[in-house]
C-alpha cells in the first residue's frame, strides 16, 4: 500500500535525494536525480490532491506515533493545492536548470547546487504538508538556509551580499515565528496544529496569545515579503542564478503565505483574528500601499529581473488583499492568485533566464531588438506580461476578477477602483520592456544573438500556455481555491 504513505514520500524523496547528489559528485547525474525526484514529487502531490478531493483530509502519523505526541502530516484541500504548485514548478524548472546552471555556475559546484535545490524543495514541501507547528519552523529553516546558498551562487558578486542580507532578515523573520510558536506552546501545552486549534479558545483572551499572534504574523510577513518587510526580496531575486529566481519567485513567498493562512485561520481562528486583533485592517492597508509603492518602483528599474522582483512584491499585495477581506470570494481570489502568480512569474523569469543565457545581461538596454533575434523568448515574455497585467484569457484576469468581486461584495468601491488602477501601472512597466525589445534596433557594439535552446524554451512555453489554459478553463484552479477558502473559513468539509 504505497498510496497510504504518499504524505511521507512527498518529503522523504527529495530529502534523501539531496545527500545522494553530494555522493554522486557529478553535475549531470545530480541533475538527473533532481528531475526524477521533482517529477515523482509532482505525481505524488497530484495523487494527494485527488485523494483529498475524493475523500476529505488525510492524516498521516509519522513513524506511527499518534497525533498530539508524534508529528502529524495533514493534507487538506488547502495545502494539497499548494503542494501541487510547489512540486509543479519544481518539475518544470528542473529540466530548465540543466543548461542554465552550466552557463551560470562553475562546474565543480553543480552537484552542490542540485543538492541545495533539493533541500530547498524538501523544506518548502515540508512547511506545507506538516501538521505540527514546530515542524513548520524546522522546514522553514531547511528551505531558508538552502535558499541562501542557492542565491549566493549567482554570477554577479552582489549575489553574496544579497544572500547575506536575506540571511539576516530571514533569520529575524524565522525567530519571530519561533517566539510566537513558543508562546503558543506555553499557553496550550501542545504543538500539534489541530490540537492547538481546539485548545486556544480557552486562552484566547490573554495577552500572551495576542503577542504570539503578532510575532507569528509579523515574522511570516517578513518571509512572504509583505510591504514594507520586502526589502530582502528585490536583491535576492535580481542576483540569484536564473533558475533559482524562477523557483523561489514561484514558490517561496507562496509557501509563506500558505503558512500565514494556516496559522491565522486554522490555529487562531477567524473570530479571534477579526474580533480581537486588527489583522484585517493592517493587512488591507499594507497590501494596498504595497501594490502601489512596489509597482511604481518597478517602473523605474532598469534591471528587468529587479523590476519583476518589485512586481512580485506588488503581487503579494494582491494576495494579501484577497486574504484581508475574510470572505469566501476574497480568499478564493487570494489562493487562486497563489497559483496564477506562480504561473506568470515562472514564465516571465524563465524567459528572462533564456535572455540572460544568450545575452549575458537583463539590463533594459541590452534587450533592444530582441523581438527579432529571440522571437519565441520575447513572445513568451509578452504573454507572461499580459497575464501579469490581467488581460482577459490569461490567469491574471481570473485573479483580478475575484479580487474585484470580493471588494464589490463588501460594497468597498474604492478598493475595487484601486485594484483596477494598479493594473494600469503594470501595463507601464511591462510595455516598457516590450517596446524596447520590439521597436529599438539591437545594440551595434555587441555580437548578434540567436534564439535560446529548446531545453530553456520548452519549459518556458509550458508555463506560458498554462497561463492561457488556466485563464480559460478555471475548473481546477478556482474550484480547488473555492473549496480551500471554505475549509479555511470553517464552512466546508
Amino acid at each position, binding site marked *: 500500500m504505497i498510496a497510504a504513505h504518499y504524505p511521507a514520500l512527498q518529503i522523504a524523496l527529495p530529502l534523501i535525494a539531496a545527500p545522494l547528489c553530494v555522493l554522486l559528485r557529478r553535475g549531470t547525474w545530480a541533475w538527473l536525480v533532481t528531475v526524477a525526484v521533482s517529477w515523482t514529487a509532482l505525481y505524488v502531490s497530484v495523487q494527494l490532491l485527488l485523494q483529498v478531493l475524493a475523500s476529505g483530509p488525510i492524516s498521516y502519523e509519522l513513524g506511527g506515533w499518534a497525533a498530539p505526541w508524534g508529528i502529524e502530516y495533514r493534507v487538506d484541500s488547502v495545502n494539497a493545492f499548494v503542494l501541487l504548485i510547489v512540486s509543479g514548478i519544481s518539475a518544470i524548472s528542473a529540466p530548465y536548470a540543466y543548461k542554465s546552471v552550466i552557463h551560470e555556475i562553475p562546474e565543480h559546484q553543480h552537484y552542490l547546487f542540485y543538492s541545495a535545490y533539493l533541500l530547498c524543495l524538501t523544506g518548502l514541501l515540508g512547511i506545507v504538508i506538516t501538521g505540527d507547528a514546530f515542524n513548520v519552523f524546522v522546514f522553514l529553516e531547511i528551505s531558508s538556509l538552502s535558499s541562501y546558498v542557492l542565491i549566493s551562487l549567482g554570477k554577479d558578486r552582489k549575489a553574496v*551580499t544579497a544572500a547575506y542580507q536575506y540571511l539576516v532578515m530571514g533569520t529575524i523573520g524565522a525567530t519571530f515565528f519561533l517566539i510566537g510558536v513558543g508562546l503558543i506552546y506555553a499557553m496550550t501545552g501542545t504543538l500539534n496544529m489541530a490540537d492547538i486549534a481546539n485548545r486556544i479558545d480557552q486562552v484566547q483572551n490573554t495577552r500572551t496569545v495576542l503577542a504570539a499572534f503578532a510575532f507569528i504574523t*509579523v515574522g511570516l510577513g*517578513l518571509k512572504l515579503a509583505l510591504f514594507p518587510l520586502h526589502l*530582502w526580496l528585490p536583491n535576492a531575486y535580481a542576483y540569484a542564478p536564473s533558475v533559482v529566481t524562477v523557483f523561489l519567485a514561484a514558490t517561496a513567498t507562496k509557501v509563506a503565505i500558505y503558512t500565514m493562512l494556516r496559522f491565522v485561520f486554522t490555529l487562531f481562528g477567524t473570530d479571534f483574528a477579526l474580533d480581537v486583533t486588527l489583522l484585517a485592517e493592517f493587512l488591507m492597508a499594507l497590501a494596498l500601499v504595497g501594490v502601489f509603492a512596489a509597482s511604481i518602483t518597478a517602473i523605474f528599474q532598469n534591471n528587468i529581473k529587479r523590476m519583476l522582483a518589485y512586481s512580485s512584491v506588488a503581487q503579494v499585495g494582491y494576495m494579501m488583499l484577497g486574504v484581508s477581506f475574510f470572505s469566501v470570494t476574497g480568499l478564493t481570489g487570494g489562493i487562486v492568485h497563489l497559483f496564477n502568480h506562480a504561473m506568470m512569474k515562472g514564465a516571465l523569469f524563465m524567459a528572462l533566464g533564456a535572455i540572460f543565457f544568450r545575452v549575458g545581461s537583463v539590463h533594459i538596454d541590452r534587450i533592444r531588438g530582441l523581438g527579432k533575434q529571440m522571437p519565441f523568448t520575447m513572445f513568451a515574455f509578452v504573454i507572461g506580461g499580459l497575464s501579469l497585467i490581467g488581460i482577459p484569457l490569461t490567469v491574471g484576469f481570473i485573479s483580478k476578477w475575484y479580487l474585484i468581486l470580493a471588494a464589490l461584495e463588501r460594497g468597498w468601491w474604492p478598493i475595487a477602483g484601486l485594484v483596477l488602477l494598479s493594473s494600469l501601472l503594470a501595463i507601464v512597466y511591462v510595455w516598457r520592456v516590450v517596446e524596447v525589445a520590439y521597436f529599438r534596433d539591437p545594440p551595434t557594439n555587441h555580437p548578434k544573438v540567436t534564439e535560446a535552446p529548446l531545453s530553456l524554451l520548452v519549459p518556458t512555453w509550458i508555463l506560458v500556455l498554462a497561463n492561457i489554459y488556466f485563464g*480559460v478553463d478555471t475548473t481546477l484552479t478556482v474550484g480547488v481555491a473555492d473549496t480551500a477558502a471554505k475549509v479555511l473559513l470553517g464552512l466546508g468539509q
Partner: protein
Amino acid sequence: MTASALAHSVPPGLVMLIGALLIPLFRGHIRSAYMLALPVIGLLQLLLLDSGTHLSVQTLGLQLDLLRVDQLSLVFGYIFHIAAFVSVIYALHVNDATQHVSGLTYAGAATGALFAGDLVTLFVYWELTAVTSVFLIFARRTPSAYRAGMRYLVIQVGSGVLLLTGIILHHIDTGSIAFDHLGLGSPATAIILVAFGIKAAFPLLHNWLQDAYPEATVTGTVFLSAFTTKLAIYALTRGYAGTEILVWIGVTMTAFPIFYAVIENDLRRVLAYSLNNQLGFMVTGIGIGTDMAINGTVAHAFSHILYKALLFMSMGAVLHRVGTIKGSELGGLYKSMPWTAAFCIVGAASISAFPLFSGFISKALIITAAAENGYFISWLILLFASAGVFHHSGIKIPYFAFFAHDSGKRCAEAPWNMLVAMGIAAAFCIGIGVYPAPLYEILPFQVDFAPYTPTHVLTQLQLLLFSALAFAVLIRYGVYPPELRSTNLDVDWLYRRLGPTLIKRVVAWIDHSARLLKEDTKGQLKDFVDGVTRHHGPEGAMARTWPTGATVLWVAILLGAFLIASFYA
C-alpha cells in the same frame, strides 16, 4: 462538416485574430497573398451566417454568448472586413511583420466584439483591440510615438477597466450580462456609457484620438481610423439607442473639433479632428434613436470608414513620399502625385457630403431624422458642422497638400499598392453615393427614404457653395488663420502638463516640509531612528546593507503598532 456549419461554429473575427499570428511564418508574395486571404475568408464566413444564430459557452459561472448574429452586427462586420482588406493592400509594401500582425489581430478583435452577445465577451475583445493596436503607433519608432502610444494604451485599457467595473455592477444589479439595450437607468450603465464614450471620443474624453492617430505609422493610421471608434459607435447603438443626452453630446462633438481643425497644421491631425466631428453625427443619430436615425448612424459609419480611410491613405501617401505632413511645408503636389490628389478629392467630396458621393446619402438620414423629431437646435448645429466639415476636410486638406502655393517639392507618385487601395475605397465612395440601394438594403431597419430629392440636393449644394465662398474670400484677403508650427492646447493639457506640474509642486512642497521638520526636530526622533539604524546597519562603505537595518526597524514598528492597536481595539 459543411461550410455553413463551420461558419456557425467559429466566432467571426477569430479568422483574422488567430490567422494573423501566423504571418511571420511567411515571406514575400506568399505573405501578401496570405494577408489578403484572411479578410476575404472572414467576409465569406459572414455571408454564410444566418441572423439569430447563437454560440454559448459556460465559464466563471457565467453563460458567455460568443456568437450573436443580427443585422446590426452584420453591417458593421461587412465594413470592418472591407476596411481590413483595403488597409492590408495599402500596407503591402511594408516589410515589418509586427505591423501586419498588429493590424490584422486588431481588426479581428474589433470584429469579434461586434458579434459578442454578452458584456464579458465584449470586454475581452474590447481590451484586445487596445493591446493589439498600440503596436501600430509604437512601430513609428520615434520617442514621441512611444510616449503617445503609452498614453493611448493607458487610456484605452482604462476604458476597458471602466467597462469591466460597469459590467460587474450591472451583473450585481440585474443578474444579467446580456449585451442588449442598456439605457441610462443605473450607476452601472452610466459607467458603461463612459467606457464606451472614451472609445467613441466623447468631448473631453476625446484627446487620445488626436494625440495618437497622427503619431502612428503611415499604414497604421489607416487601420486605426477604421476600427476603434466605430466599434464604440456600434456598442452605443446597441446599448444606448434613444438616450437623449447623446444628442447633445453628439452635436457638441460635431461642432467643437472644427475650430481646432481649422488652425491645426499637421494634416493627419486635421483628419483626426474631422474624424471626431464625423463621430458626432453618428452619436447624434444614436441619441435620436428612431429607426431612421439608427439607419443613418449605421449607414454613416459604413461610408465614413471608407472615405476617412481614403483621406488618411492619401495623406499617408504624401507623408510616405515627402516625409512631412505639415500644411505649411506642402503645396503643389498635384503635379507629382496626380492620382493621389484625385483620390483625395473623392474622399474630400464624400466627407463633405457632395451629392453623388457616399457621405451625402448617409448623413442626410441623420439630419433629416433630427429635423423630423423636433431637434431644431441640434439640426442647426449639424448644418453648421456640415459646412465646417466641408471647410476643413473638403477644401483645406486637398488645397494645402496638393495645390496652394507650390512648395517646390517633387516626388514620385505613391506606390502601386497604395494607389490600388485608394482606388478601391474611392470606387466604394462613388458607388455608394450614386447607387445607395444595396447599402440601404442591409441596414438594420426598413429604409423609407429617398436621398435624391430636389430639396435635399439643393439645400446641401447651397451649404457647400457658401462654405466654399467663405474659404475663397478668407484666402483671397489673406485673413485665413495661418497654419502655425504649434501644438493646439486641448484638454490633454490637463494630464500632459498640469498633472505632472502639480505633482512636481506637491513633491517639492513635501520635500521642503520634510527638510524643515528634519532641521526642527533634530532631537529625540532622529536620534532614535539613527540609533536603530546605527545598531543594525553597518556604516560607511557597507552602506549597501542598510536595508537590513531598515527591515529591522519596520519589523519593530509593525510589531509594536499591531500589538498596541490590538490591545486598545
